[in-house]
């Protein structure tokens, strides 16, 4: 029989490992943010969000900086996307939001392309410039017909 202090230690380590696994699942995989209230919440309106969905990543230069919180239809029947990005980001008000695809058939994500203005976006602001999703159909059409005017904007 093991002495009880060894056992206590092993139980402690076990509980710690278990809690770490739960933490990993919740924070990393599940995307639970412990500092939710501090996030920068921004709005972007698109004609077509394509395959973008809740929890799709928001990237700047390919680096993940936040995620899509919700997608709703506004009064003008356009898609209104709420995103939640890191609060310390300094985004100028002429930053553009675009919906892009990783690879040809990959997931869709929102890409932010920083502008040059001195004024910064604050929580609750809308993006002035947005670029809708490119559908595969449209891309194929462009390739086949060489049709240049396919951008859905």
């Amino acid at each position, binding site marked *: 029989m093991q002495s009880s202090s060894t056992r206590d230690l092993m*139980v402690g380590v076990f509980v710690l490992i278990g809690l770490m696994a739960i933490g990993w*699942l919740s924070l990393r995989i599940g995307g639970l943010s412990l500092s939710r209230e501090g996030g920068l919440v921004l709005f972007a309106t698109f004609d077509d969000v394509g395959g973008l969905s809740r929890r799709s990543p928001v990237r700047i230069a390919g680096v993940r900086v936040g995620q899509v919180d919700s997608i709703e239809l506004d009064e003008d029947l356009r898609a209104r996307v709420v995103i939640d990005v890191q609060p310390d980001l300094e985004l100028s008000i002429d930053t553009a939001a675009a919906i892009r695809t990783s690879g040809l058939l990959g997931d869709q994500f929102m890409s932010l392309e920083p502008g040059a203005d001195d004024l910064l976006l604050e929580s609750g602001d809308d993006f002035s410039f947005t670029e809708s999703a490119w559908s595969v159909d449209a891309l194929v059409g462009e390739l086949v017909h060489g049709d240049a005017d396919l951008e859905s904007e």
Partner: protein
Amino acid sequence: MLGPVRRLGALAVARIEGLGRMTVFLGQVGRAMLRPPVRIGYVVRAVYDSGVLSIALICASGATVGLVLGLQLHNTLSRFGAEESLGTAVGLSLIRELGPVLTGLLVTGRAGSAATAEIGSMKASEQLDGLRMMAIDPIHFVVMPRALGLAIVMPLLSALFIFFGIFGAYLIGVEVLGLDAGSYLSRLENAVDFREDVLQSLVKASVFGILLGWIATWRGYACEPHAVGVSRATTSTVVTASVCILLADYVLTALWGV
């Protein structure tokens, strides 16, 4: 002519009476948790018996299930050219279903049966009566720590199982079948939601743990006080707890979808 009907009635009454006793027992165990002294040492021992000693089993099973899932889902997904979604498919199935359910079944076989056998043999050898005669409540002293131990251990082991499952599928998908490592994990992260999936997984595992703690200790506590009774009770724990876990899984999944 009325004989079979009467027997059916007697059987139904006996079943309902059994359920009633089980419910009273659960109440006693619950009260025992709140009553001082807190038997932290015994709870730690129970966590050691049902948790620490199950780690190897859970990790090995989790990794194996992950490997198999990786192979099988890759095979299926590749028919639709969607191999890149392997991370999503593996993660969601492990987190939402396989992790909690398989952990529940494994812990039932590994630790639940042991708890029943231990309490049952303590009853058979008059150890529970001995405690009573020392004015020590066996529910507080023996049953409660073990039930609590099983309930604590289940979500922790389930999370470990999922971790190793995802790791196993990663090995197959990325190292063997040549998927992109970054896309495996990022797909997984994008697809899994905390409230929808991870929380559901943790709630399921906790409910299974409470169910198992309840059933395993009850079967031991109520077993007939001899060797045959103990072995029957042990078998019955494995059967009852497994069925209850599967049923509870369905109910929880259905409720979560609403």
